[in-house]
């Protein structure tokens, strides 16, 4: 098994692999061809001369990456309360099932009759996600969350085009608290984006919404629970308002972890939603991907689903391409299949009896952190939070010249990954803390104790925070210089 450790500044500076290269070395036991030799230039026309890749032995290679892993923080290193990202434990059995040869060694173009077990997994995930979200249909074709958002908007676009309203409905409404992917996905589908403000209580401003709604609006993209960690209590009314104006309501499902087994977005009035299986359903984040972006939708959008559509037909599961109204393909094959195997494994581990525990303990943990920190970092809103709490460090900025980012960097010195900072954009000096359900009370206590201590430091010795982190392989890095003196690859010394 891998051993985990997180080494810090005592470690020697890691070299680039290119600086460890020595001509003639190779880092693996290559397959040898036993077919007749050929004249490459005669076959290919022209053969390139230079290929400047490193040459290192196998052990050198492993040490290089083991040492790099020691200066990289993961969930298995320590507490990682990055808000909006749901950094929960990624069960090891998921890795084991996804590695089974009967899943890992499948070619996407092999005859579909030879992959019935894979189709069972896909439809199994679809069925369970339908039950959990309350939507009529699920597709697993999108490759990440933002890709799922985009696919939902494409379905909406196709729906209006079929009704002859494609030109007229060119606006997508996006609350000012939304993730940046929402307006970016809308723009990527050719929509004009209009912001909708959030009111003082943290809810959607209904008056502003009413004003914005007319027959030019294709959709409202709403995150529920919102990025403020709050459940939108007017959700049914909001959906009804948009529907009355002839529009569709999309749910950003980044925060599904607050709802699993407790409430279903399909029952709230939404027409479609995206899910992040790498957040809610425990597939590993992998350092920034692969994501995995299922979407759910109601019947009226079903004709436009991307192909292939995995569905039942006469007791069999099929990959259906005969879809005259489809928007087409959004990804090359069947989506992130091995991630679906992981999500399937996870869903079956919880099952009917325990599924609701996910949201129940996620919400318990977030409210506990909120309660323990309220005296040093007040919540942005005086309401129970859902799976994450939004706190503000505004007073430390005003009184001590310490920013939320400084507090975050200091947390690294205490052995914790910082929460999300400066998002949502509408809360000043913001912390977005999402503990997830898989953390113990002891871990939350240690984290809260550290943050309380840091808040005292902010008053007594603010420079400790300005200079943080001081325990890592590098101190705070100059991001402005990185843009000014762009260096995005190594070049051989000539």
């Amino acid at each position, binding site marked *: 098994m891998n051993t985990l450790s997180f080494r810090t500044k005592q470690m020697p*500076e890691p070299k*680039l692999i290119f600086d460890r290269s020595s001509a003639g070395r190779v*880092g693996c*036991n290559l397959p040898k*061809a036993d*077919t007749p030799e050929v004249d490459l230039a005669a076959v290919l026309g022209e053969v390139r001369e230079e290929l400047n*890749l*490193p*040459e290192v032995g196998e052990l050198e290679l492993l040490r290089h*990456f083991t040492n790099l892993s020691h*200066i990289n923080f993961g969930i298995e290193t320590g507490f*990682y309360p990055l808000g909006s990202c749901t950094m*929960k434990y990624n069960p090891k059995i998921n890795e084991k*099932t996804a590695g089974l040869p009967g*899943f*890992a060694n499948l*070619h996407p173009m092999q005859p579909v009759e030879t992959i019935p077990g894979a189709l*069972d997994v896909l439809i199994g995930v679809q069925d369970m996600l339908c039950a959990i979200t309350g939507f009529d249909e699920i597709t697993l074709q999108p*490759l*990440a969350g933002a890709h799922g958002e985009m696919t939902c908007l*494409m379905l909406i676009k196709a729906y209006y085009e079929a009704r002859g309203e494609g030109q007229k409905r060119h606006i997508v409404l996006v609350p000012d608290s939304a993730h*940046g*992917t929402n*307006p*970016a996905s*809308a723009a*990527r589908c*050719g929509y004009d*984006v209009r912001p909708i403000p959030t009111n003082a209580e943290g809810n959607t401003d209904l008056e502003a919404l009413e004003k914005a709604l007319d027959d030019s609006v294709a959709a409202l993209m709403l995150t529920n629970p919102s990025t403020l960690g709050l*459940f939108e*209590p007017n959700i049914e009314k909001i959906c009804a308002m948009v529907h009355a104006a002839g529009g569709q309501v999309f749910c950003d499902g980044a925060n599904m972890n607050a709802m699993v087994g407790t409430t279903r977005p399909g029952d709230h009035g939404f027409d479609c939603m995206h899910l992040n299986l790498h957040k809610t359903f425990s597939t590993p984040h992998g350092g*920034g991907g*692969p994501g995995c972006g299922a979407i759910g939708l109601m019947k009226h959008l079903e004709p436009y689903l*991307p192909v292939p559509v995995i569905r039942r037909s006469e007791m069999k599961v099929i990959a259906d391409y005969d879809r005259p109204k489809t928007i*087409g*393909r959004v990804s*090359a*094959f*069947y989506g*992130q*299949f*091995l991630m679906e195997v992981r999500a399937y494994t996870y869903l079956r581990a919880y*099952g009917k009896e325990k599924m*609701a525990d996910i949201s*129940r303990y996620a*919400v*318990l943990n977030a409210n506990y952190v909120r*309660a323990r920190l309220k005296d040093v970092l007040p919540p942005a809103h005086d309401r129970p939070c859902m799976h994450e709490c939004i706190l503000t460090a505004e007073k430390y900025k005003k009184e001590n010249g310490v920013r939320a980012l400084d507090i975050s960097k200091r947390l*690294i010195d205490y052995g914790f990954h910082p929460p*999300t900072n400066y998002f949502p954009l509408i809360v000043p000096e913001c912390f977005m803390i999402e503990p997830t*359900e*898989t953390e*113990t*009370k002891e871990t939350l206590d240690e984290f809260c104790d550290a943050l309380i201590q840091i808040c005292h430091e902010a008053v007594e010795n603010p420079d400790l925070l300005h200079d943080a*982190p001081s325990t890592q392989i*590098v*101190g*705070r890095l100059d*991001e402005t210089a990185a843009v000014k003196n762009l260096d*995005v690859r190594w070049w051989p010394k000539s």
Partner: protein
Amino acid sequence: MPYIPHTDSDRREMLATIGAQSIDELFREIPEKLRVAPGSLDLPPALDEPRLMAHLWELSKKNVNLADVTCFLGAGVYDRYIPATVGAVISRGEFLTSYTPYQPEASQGYLQAIYEFQTMISEIYGMDLSNASMYDGATSMAEAAIMATGIKHRDKVAVSEAVHPHYRQVLDTYCWSMGIEVITLPAVATGVTDLSAAADAACIILQYPNFFGTIEDLAAQRAACDSSEALMIVVADPVACALLKPPGAFGADIVVGEGQSLGVAMGLGGPMVGLFTCKKSLIRQIPGRIVGKTKEAHGEKPGYVMTLRTREQDIRREKATSNICTNEALMALAATVHMIALGKNGMREVATASVRNTQYAIQQLTAAGAKLHYSGRVFGEFVLELPKDPTVVRDALLEKGILCGLPLGSYYDELKNCLLVAVTELRTKDQIETYASALKEVLA
């Protein structure tokens, strides 16, 4: 409860600190009628770990996997050698369970690895720079086309019909939603693309080698792009580029591709990894994340950060260069380990072995009664014309344990007698001869 560590006393103490009587009370802002009772959803029962493993094992066994058959199927996803070190590195928890390196000081390991990834991908394609990865080859190509329309202020893109049909379908979907027109350029008898109809498009897109395995004339593409002031976009196979003159050497503006061949399991086609490289002058229009080298703000030590962030959705919102957020970092890490493990010589050896095996397979299979459909040069894949329905041949050979290739009739009407065959470095002389004699029997 699996994966949830709370004891009864934890829960009681936590609720007391919060000042709530029950967990249910924490959900009070959700209207009562929108709540469902815990345990009431229509879901299958929970499985303990041994039963779960046994269940997944059973499902996996229902599939024909490539350990059971000899694979001559390619078409964008290849059965290639993956060194054992790749799995060992990407399963390390520090990499596997981290996320986007928003806190660079605590993420130097991944950031450095991606900087190495960017360097090697740029080198293989002969390009100035690479981003930190995209979802897959198909979406990478679509992003490149959309990037070109923005740069050229033209709402038309030209793509060869010899580009992977699934990639073109994804391009169609993306372009439809943005109101961009797609022109398809036909392939000629050698299997390369006729570029004459590409006028006033923002870009011309070729695949190298193309879907049929044929090596396209990139010098002609450059000339056609120059005369119509279009961007030259190439979808290139990184393994082939270990031997072929790289697209960058022909003056390509953007080179994209699928990185699955670089150490990523086939996995029914996901997750894979999209490659995206371009000329330096285009860096501010590039989609996705880029890692850059910098130094400490108050010191001299070098370090790595995500850079040129103002192109991205979380800062730029609707004006971002793309909506991509999460990419395929773990697969990019796999590719990094793979490229280092093989290194300069290994990459060339693998590519050379593919060429040798491919040439031998062409010789053996044509001797067995099939005909080579195109006359152009090929790298590791080719189109065979069969005297019998290719789907019938495929099914008959599968019975004999040979996954013989992809029948092309469902993609190209005029190629309904044709089969696309890939031969990687993993195939042996013996396997190729077995394929040839089985084919001969089936065709007889």
